[in-house]
């Protein structure tokens, strides 16, 4: 197992290098000039030249790439073109927000997704099955953008149950230590701030969870249906075991394998930052930051951000692979 993990980590390195080369080259090839965008209509050739010099954009490509990699291995991702802040610091301020949102959204989608999937599978073609599947289809079809606005209108403006946007209320004074507001509130032993942070998480997490929920529930349903048809399930039934015991003790462990894969992929996607959700809910995460970087051609943000997303994805998938072996010891991790 340990050997397997080490081998997988070693493969990560060329994967990530490949990502950086592709991103680096694509950025330099695509039209759009960060200096031009920084200066806008008032750019004069002299100002542009000074800006490009300052940004190091006049060096040959291989020099720029070499410098980037040399610093990246020391965990120095350079400074953003727009704010001149260290990219690693910008990420450190925003990634916790994305993680918090992703974790809560995944929790909602896993819990309800697996539950709905199991019930639908055991009660195939019942009204519950149809309702559950149609609802999840609805969730996956509605644009998150629109769904977010609808949630805000209903639960925030009209009912006043949840706050509309942002991570925490303006009146709440929370000392920021880890940038995980929920954690910081617990550390500060501030119950009111904890409640406020969780309330702010509610709507964006709900909106964000709809797509993974639909996918997880459908995956669980079809996987469970597959497993429930197996001979050993028939044997268990014949032996007189209760439905619950059959499903939860015997079927689920096998049924979950493909579901875990899907959950891993979805989680990786969410950790990359849900741009639309972050924009609509004014959630200061890496998704919007990376998107803004693309629009402004902030090469350092794009390079650092994509490296972050790629690394996260790779790590999540590694964990998923390890989980396979945990869930079903018969699957070896060779």
């Amino acid at each position, binding site marked *: 197992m340990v050997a397997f993990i080490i081998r997988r980590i070693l493969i990560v390195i060329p994967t990530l290098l490949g990502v950086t080369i592709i991103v680096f080259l694509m950025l330099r090839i695509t039209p759009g000039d960060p200096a031009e965008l920084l200066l806008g209509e008032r750019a004069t050739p002299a100002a542009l030249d000074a800006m490009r010099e300052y940004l190091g954009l006049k060096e040959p490509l291989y020099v720029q790439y070499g410098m980037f990699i040399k610093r990246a291995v020391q965990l120095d991702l350079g400074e953003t073109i727009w704010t001149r802040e260290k990219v690693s610091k910008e990420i450190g301020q925003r990634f916790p927000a994305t993680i918090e949102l992703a974790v809560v959204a995944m929790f909602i989608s896993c819990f309800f997704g697996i539950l709905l999937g199991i019930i639908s599978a055991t009660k195939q073609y019942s009204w519950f099955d149809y309702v559950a599947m149609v609802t999840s289809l609805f969730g996956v079809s509605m644009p998150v953008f629109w769904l977010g606005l609808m949630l805000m209108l209903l639960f925030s403006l009209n009912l006043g149950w949840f706050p509309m946007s942002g991570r925490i209320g303006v009146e709440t004074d929370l000392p920021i230590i880890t940038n995980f507001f929920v954690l910081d509130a617990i550390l500060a032993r501030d119950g009111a701030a904890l409640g406020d942070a969780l309330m702010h998480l509610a709507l964006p997490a709900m909106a964000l969870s709809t797509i993974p929920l639909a996918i997880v529930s459908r995956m669980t349903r079809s996987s469970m249906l597959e497993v429930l048809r197996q001979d050993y399930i028939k044997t268990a039934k014949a032996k007189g075991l209760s439905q619950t015991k059959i499903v939860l003790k015997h079927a689920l462990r096998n049924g979950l394998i493909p579901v875990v894969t899907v959950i891993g992929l979805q989680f990786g996607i969410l950790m990359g930052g849900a741009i639309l959700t972050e924009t609509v809910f004014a959630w*200061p995460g890496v998704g919007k930051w990376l998107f803004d970087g693309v629009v402004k051609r902030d090469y350092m943000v794009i390079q650092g951000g994509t490296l972050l997303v790629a690394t996260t994805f790779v790590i999540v998938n590694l964990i998923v692979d390890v989980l396979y072996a945990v869930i079903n010891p018969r699957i070896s991790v060779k």
Partner: protein
Amino acid sequence: MIKKMIVVLALVTLGVVGAAFAQTPKKGGTLVFGRGGDSVGLDPAYETDGNSFMICDNVYEALVEYKDESTELEPLLATSWQISPDGLTYTFNLRKGVKFHDGTPFNADAVVFSLGRQMKDRKLKFFGKGWEIPKQDRPPEYWVSMEMDNTVDSIEAKDEYTVVFKLKRVEAPFLANLGMDFADIISPTAFMKDPAAFVRNPVGTGPYKFVNWVKDDRITLEAFKDYWDKDKGPYMDKVIFRAIPENAVRFLELKAGKIHICQFPNAADIPLAQKDPKLWVPTQPGMNIGYLGFNHKKEPWKSNRNLRRAIAHAINRKAIVDNIYQGMGQVAKNCIPPTMWGYNNDVPGYEYNVELAKKLLAEAGYPEGKGLPEITLWSMPVARPYNPEGLKVGVAMIGDLAKIGISARIVSYDWGTYLKRQRQQPEDMDLFQLGWTGDNGDPDNFFAVLFDGLASEAVRTQWHHEGYHKLMLDGKQTIDQAKRAEIYKKAQQLMFDEVPVIPIAHSTVMWPAVKAVKNFKLHPTGSVRLKSVWLEK
């Protein structure tokens, strides 16, 4: 009779006293300002975006400032100034008893430091010990684009409260430039403590001082207890600037009462705000111009004035303002907005007249458009302050041109590429949409920068006209504002006659607010001044 007089007198007194009470600012409260994006940095010399300047407007002050709702200058950190007869020496007398937020005193050395650090060639003289100003680690955008290095020769602190600027050339807009954000005075002590961190920890003399900054979320300011102009503010305890990128959500937060002022709502939400009894809509004509330019490096645009004039009369600008600006704008007669001094109201403007346009087109040698190949109309893909939807405006214009027989097609690029290519005046560019937001309220900032092709190859409209060029030079070198106003009025008449560009519209800025926000006025320059704003409880 006397009884009547007493009654009237009593009523008048009551009225006056009542009115005075109604206008007395109430202290306290926290204002939450909802804006579309976060600041980039808070060192005024190095920022270029409105969201950064918004904070600078309240944390820092400059030697002079623009009056409320106009671009006329008045004293701020300088109480008075003298300009030498040859226009090359400016002497400023500074305000005494002003403190920075860190408690250090404001004086001539702070002025020398704040502006001197931006100079390429630092010819500075401090009055006291002074500082060894570190080398700049980035170019100061506005100092460079306003060509201050070609203007300012030296800055000298004659004594603790007197600063002298010696100029290399006569530059009438120089004083107006000193009212811009880049000329804000910063605390040298705070800067020298940690130059790299200053951009995220601003220290100025303004009514509000910086508290903290949560990236992409909010910036918090609190009232500065030792502010020098206490009679005028600050009245609120705290101001929080929240970044809410989605326009519709920002407006919803305003309706829910969670924010007090909403920057840049969707145009469709303005009528909703106007109808809402809890809201009011501060309005201000923007100090900007959206125009349609010609590629003067190529024929027929370079020489055929009748053709340019034909197009000017063919475009239905009112329809564009009504439907695409959705009423948040006004048709432009000239290339500066009516709120600026020097505006020439006598210029008739190009009336929308299809028949006249057709006649002029024939006179230009292209009856019914025959002989003119399909032309390109460059349109920008992003919303700009002077043009909410470049592509839609482009489509509208193409429709107008088709009515007189000219066939045209839209060309667009991503914004950075658009700006880069337009400046190169490429062969495949015939007409282009562009615009400008004024920097310093000076007509030179529009007329010379945008249209004097003889001044530089980098000017975006490469119109080469000796008469216009001379007017621009005269405008820069004449100090007397009344005389300068006459020069720019002549320039506007000349532009009307020669049609180097077609002015389309000035946008109108409308930022709805809750009724509890009092004394909030939008400024033509776009600055957000909260000094004298107060909250009704």
